[in-house]
């Protein structure tokens, strides 16, 4: 009798501990200390971006012409630039721009690349050949060069930078998604759905996409970092986001001329970019390890 009780209790316990896939992923993710550091950095950045008006001591475009090019001090934590604007405040507001650009560009890449990749993988044959040839052609141009060329054609600006960076990353998403779709589409539940009368659109969206999510999430989380870096690079050479906007790359570019006497104008925006990319890379790596335990580093 006791044994029966115990087993039922155990069984009940087992049942109450019913865990989803998300829980497993989180348990694996939690074990990775570096990934947690990454999550902390990214969380802090998001908080900073959302609460920018509260965190920043000054407005990002407030010019104090009486205190231009000041070294870091208690009044101006990171110093001021050549127009007397508080660099710390500009960096705080800049996190909004950079994160926004990064996420939107990665979203453009994921959506366009994902759609192309899943169509190519799902339909195969001629459609696959046509799409993948086009992707090959885009891959022949290094991503940065492609982004620069698109940005040159569209003109500078926030929206155009996001489009340029997003499109330049389409090929890598398309390839990842196509590969994932190819492994999923042969499985029985796809056939079952088709037998139930599901059309292609339904199958791709409801059955294939959810099963390809892991590689897409990993690629996208690393893609945000790449996109931020690419956007900052383009702003640095004067193509991306234009100055009054407190974009980190543009700030760096503006501070370049003063590097000899006022290195702080260049130092802090660069550190901000580096910490952001570092955090996102750690997070992306952690997600990859957690989502796909079979994958080794």
């Amino acid at each position, binding site marked *: 009798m006791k044994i029966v009780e115990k087993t039922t209790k155990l069984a009940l316990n087992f049942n109450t501990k019913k865990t989803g896939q998300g829980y497993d992923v989180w348990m694996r993710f939690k074990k990775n200390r*570096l990934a947690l550091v990454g999550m902390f950095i990214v969380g802090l950045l998001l908080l900073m971006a959302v609460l920018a008006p509260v965190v920043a001591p000054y407005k990002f475009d407030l010019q104090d012409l009486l205190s231009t090019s000041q070294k870091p001090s208690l009044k101006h934590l990171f110093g001021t630039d050549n127009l007397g604007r508080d660099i710390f405040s500009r960096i705080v507001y800049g996190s909004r721009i950079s994160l926004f650009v990064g996420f939107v560009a990665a979203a453009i890449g994921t959506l366009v690349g994902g759609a192309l990749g899943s169509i190519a993988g799902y339909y195969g044959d001629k459609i696959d050949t046509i799409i993948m*040839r*086009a992707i*090959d*052609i*885009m891959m*022949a*141009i*290094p*991503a*940065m*060069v492609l982004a*620069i*060329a*698109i940005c*040159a*054609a569209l003109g500078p600006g926030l929206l155009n930078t996001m489009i340029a960076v997003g499109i330049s990353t389409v090929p890598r998403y398309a390839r990842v998604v196509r590969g994932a779709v190819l492994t999923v589409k042969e499985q029985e539940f796809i056939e079952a759905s088709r037998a139930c009368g599901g059309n292609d659109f339904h199958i791709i969206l409801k059955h294939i996409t959810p099963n390809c999510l892991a590689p897409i999430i990993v690629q996208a989380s690393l893609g945000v*970092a790449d996109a931020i*870096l690419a956007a*900052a*690079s383009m702003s*640095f*050479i*004067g*193509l991306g986001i234009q100055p009054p906007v407190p974009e980190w*790359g543009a700030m*760096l570019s503006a501070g*370049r001329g003063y*590097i*000899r006497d006022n*290195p702080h104008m*260049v*130092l802090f*925006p*660069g550190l901000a*970019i*580096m*910490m952001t*990319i*570092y955090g996102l*890379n*750690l997070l992306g*790596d952690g997600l990859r390890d957690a989502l796909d335990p079979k994958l*080794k*580093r």
Partner: protein
Amino acid sequence: MSRYILKRIFHMIPVMFGVSLIIFTLMFFIPGDPARQILGDKATEASISELRAELGLDKPFVVQYVNYIEGVLTGDFGISYTTKQPVSAELFARFPTTLLFAIISILVACIIGIPLGIISATRQYSFIDNISTTLTLLGMSIPSFWLGLMLMLLFSLHLGWFPATGFYGPKYWVLPSVTIGVTSAAFITRMTRSSMLEVIRQDYIRTARSKGQTEFKIITKHALKNAMIPVVTTIGLIFGASLGGQIITEQVFSIPGLGKLMIDAISQRNYPVVEGGVLLIAFSFTVINLLVDLIYAYIDPRIKSQFVIEKKKKESTALKGM
């Protein structure tokens, strides 16, 4: 093998046509009239339309594209709007600098990255490994243009060891190639480490150990050769990526290379130069990838044997047909 090379070269042709179409289309639909750009604001309508006719800008898109391709195939990339010189001359004057820069950077990256990766892998989870893993991730996160500025600040403005700008001799090469090299080295270290880790767990490494081979020889002779295959692929990809990154770094160090030429051309709306530059970069990138694949086949006998087997199969089926 030679058939494989030919096939790959043949495959390059449509890709390069596609690249030229993308770039030409992008540049074609930019608002603004190049003829007006060349002649300036004071030009009369008549002279502008005359120049448009001379440059072939009044023709429809398809005709212009076909003309451009015909030119490119004979080595004529058009005329630069600003200097009035042939674009090809400007491109090929700058190209050697960019290529040299790329090669030195990738050498720096390999010299740092491969040994670091090997050491990390052979002493997994040791102090050195942890340090190198952290540095690797940091190296991947540093924006190269910022690193370049910081190196310039420290080594040329403060210490005065290296010149800050230009690219005229070994002394000038150090800072720019380290700038690009650090990021690339990070990727190479990571790839070398993971690839080595996989290889040193293989049975043949255990066999080598059990027959009493020294650890050094095991690593250099048995493990490294096999571990290098994915690393070579990475190096090829990085080479292309650094061609893109170089555009930015050339700007930082005022290196008279292709990247600087292109960025200047973009700000001057000098589109034939941009088109030519992108085409040349894409072409070099494709050629490098082809070379990497050939090296790949050369160092990995498994891949080489695939072609031999395929060839034999074909021969035998041909014989059967007779």
